[in-house]
């Protein structure tokens, strides 16, 4: 089968492509470009059932008629969607024999983060003699989860092994046509995670640990679906404090959370994708749609620490559909150099006695721009809804910007809404005070920023809070002249 890439492309262009053709190809990466056949091919490659293929195709046809949103406070060169390859098998990192062969810069960062040697090797792709150990750890996790009936696997596996669950819930919180990037993701998502917690089960561990061991490389178009059945609880951690030098420029993930009656989902994210260099060159574009739906008396809590990416467009949201349900959003977004972030949340109150809390902390340094954008919506039926929002911005230097765009729509008179916002600057007097106590300027800034972010850091699972603190420190390194 000696097709060259050019020939392949031509065939796709002329639509003379036959279903199933791709199974014959050795190459693990598709040629660039996006059309219906590519969508079909992705589905085929993953051996998906017809309903899934149709679902993707439907999303794709919607996407074609949509336009890239322009309302955000972001300025970037729009990606050329025909210039991207939409499927590639997880990239194999070069196999290195020892840490001596790893980029010393990367190792420096690992050490600062306090990542164990073993994990450093794993993250940087060094062949490990202790592999057995980490496999056995993962297996132990798996056994514990299985015992409780918890399903935790890749979304691809879930489509194969639990099609009824996926089919019932996929796209119910973030519809295929929700927005431009969500539609794109729905059409071409490569992989992601699936999690189901059965009725009344309390997931005995942070799903982070497991995740971290297993998830080496993340895909460009990730799809995550978490379902917490009635009266269940799960704490889920996504991402990694270790720097991800992903070469993919565009990331458009979709995360859907479903908390059925009396369930609770705690979803924490630490995002540290390559933010571009000091001159604003390169870096990841991160356009994410994250949303959860709360049924009666259930609770969804989003916590995020965002330090990476050149451009971030992200609004983890809660639809408080059930009565007495609770939505929470705790966020720290740090931008430095030329980074831009437009992030916040949407709290949609539908049920009675619903409550939401928003705590957003933005730290801007260098020439970066950091925007909070949030919507609190109280629908006519949402009696006695309550919201508390607090948006604090911390500025460093004179060239960065902090912006707050709060939208409040109230259609029920019984609602109680509170909004507080502050903007402050790290003062030279604060720095001098710390200096005088023997704390140098970089450490002083880290201390002040950590203090500023404390309310949110406290919401992270313990072991991650420590790493996240160090991450904040590293992200702001060199931000003071």
């Amino acid at each position, binding site marked *: 089968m000696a097709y060259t890439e050019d020939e392949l492309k031509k065939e796709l262009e002329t639509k003379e492509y036959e279903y199933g053709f791709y199974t014959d190809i050795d190459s693990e990466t598709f040629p660039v470009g996006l059309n219906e056949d590519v969508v079909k091919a992705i589905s085929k490659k993953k051996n998906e059932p017809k309903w899934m293929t149709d679902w993707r195709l439907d999303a794709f046809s919607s996407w074609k008629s949509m336009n890239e949103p322009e309302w955000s406070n972001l300025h970037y060169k729009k990606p050329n969607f025909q210039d991207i390859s939409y499927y590639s098998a997880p990239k194999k990192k070069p196999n290195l024999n020892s840490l001596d062969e790893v980029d010393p810069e990367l190792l420096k960062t690992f050490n600062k983060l306090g990542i164990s040697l073993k994990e450093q090797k794993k993250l940087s792709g060094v062949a490990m003699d202790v592999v057995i150990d980490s496999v056995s750890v993962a297996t132990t996790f798996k056994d514990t989860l299985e015992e409780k009936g918890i399903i935790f696997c890749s979304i691809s596996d879930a489509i194969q092994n639990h099609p009824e669950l996926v089919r019932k819930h996929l796209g119910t919180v973030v519809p295929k046509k929700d927005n431009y990037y969500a539609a794109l993701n729905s059409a071409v998502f490569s992989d992601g995670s699936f999690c189901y917690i059965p009725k009344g089960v309390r997931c005995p561990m942070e799903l982070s640990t497991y995740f971290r061991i297993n998830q080496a490389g993340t895909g460009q178009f990730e799809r995550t679906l978490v379902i917490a059945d009635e009266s269940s609880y799960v704490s889920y951690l996504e991402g990694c404090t270790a720097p991800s030098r992903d070469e993919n420029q565009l990331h458009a993930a979709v995360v859907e959370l479903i908390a059925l009656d009396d369930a609770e989902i705690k979803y924490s994210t630490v995002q540290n994708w390559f933010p571009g260099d000091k001159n604003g060159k390169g870096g990841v574009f991160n356009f994410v749609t994250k949303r959860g739906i709360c049924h009666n008396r259930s609770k969804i809590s989003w916590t995020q620490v965002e330090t990476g990416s050149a451009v971030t467009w992200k609004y983890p949201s809660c639809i408080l559909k059930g009565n007495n349900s609770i939505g929470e959003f705790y966020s720290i977004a740090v931008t430095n150099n030329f980074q831009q972030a437009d992030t916040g949340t949407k709290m949609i109150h539908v049920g009675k006695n619903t409550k939401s809390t928003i705590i957003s902390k933005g730290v801007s340094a260098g020439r970066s721009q950091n925007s909070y954008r949030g919507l609190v919506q109280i629908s006519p039926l949402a009696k006695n809804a309550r919201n508390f929002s607090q948006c604090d911005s911390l500025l460093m230097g004179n060239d960065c910007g902090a912006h707050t765009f709060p939208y409040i729509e109230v259609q029920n008179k019984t609602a109680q809404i509170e909004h507080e916002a502050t903007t402050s600057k790290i003062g030279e007097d*604060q720095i001098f005070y*710390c*200096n*005088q106590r*023997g704390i140098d300027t970089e450490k002083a800034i880290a*201390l*002040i920023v950590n*203090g500023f972010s404390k309310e949110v850091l406290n919401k992270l699972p313990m072991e991650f809070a420590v790493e996240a603190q160090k991450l904040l420190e590293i992200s702001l390194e060199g931000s003071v002249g």
Partner: protein
Amino acid sequence: MLEINNLHCQIEDKPILKGINLKINKGEIHAIMGPNGSGKSTLANVISGHEDYEITKGNIYFKDQEINELSPEERAHAGVFLSFQYPVEIPGVTVTNFIKTAINESRKSKGQEEMPSSEMLKKIREKASLLEIDSNFLSRSLNQGFSGGEKKRNEIFQMAMMEPELAVLDETDSGLDIDALKIVANGVIKCSNENNSVLVITHYQRLLDYIVPDFVHIIMDGKVVKSGDKDLAKKIEDIGYDWLKKDNS
């Protein structure tokens, strides 16, 4: 301990100190008094290395080493402590966390390990009781919402924790009622010994009833115009500075 020779300094091209001479030996307590705008706080800032103050002439020696060019943190590591007239707030950083960071950064600079937390805890308890500070206070954000008295007490608590060789107290008595003043002064006295020195900057003689100085210096228009013992402070309290102005001109 501290020797200042013919120190001239300016801020944004405005000369403030115009030839200060001062020598403080180990174990001594010195007080500096002077009218508003005479350069007292400037002197405190220059000693601790504030970069807004530019030294145009003269030298500062600390433990026989010239420190003109040292950064504030290097001076702190060497053993210089400034109790601020207006301590700043750092929201979200507890008193405990701050002092822990300060102590460990100083240790790090000397190539020492971090202080074990049991030792830290013991020290915090000991020094807190010295200044009649309760444990709730230690978990509050640094200086945030503190009363004037609490802020100053916190400064002296930090001094007690860091055990500097030279403590410069910049108007530590301002904003204190008499009870708080006694506690703070008592804390300073308990920390001072034959191996360290204290420089007290004040407007009022009243603090010097509790922290009794070995020497008193009067600064006017950026110069030391008169030095003496504690009686000089009393005289100032009684008759003010005018007689010195005439004397000087």
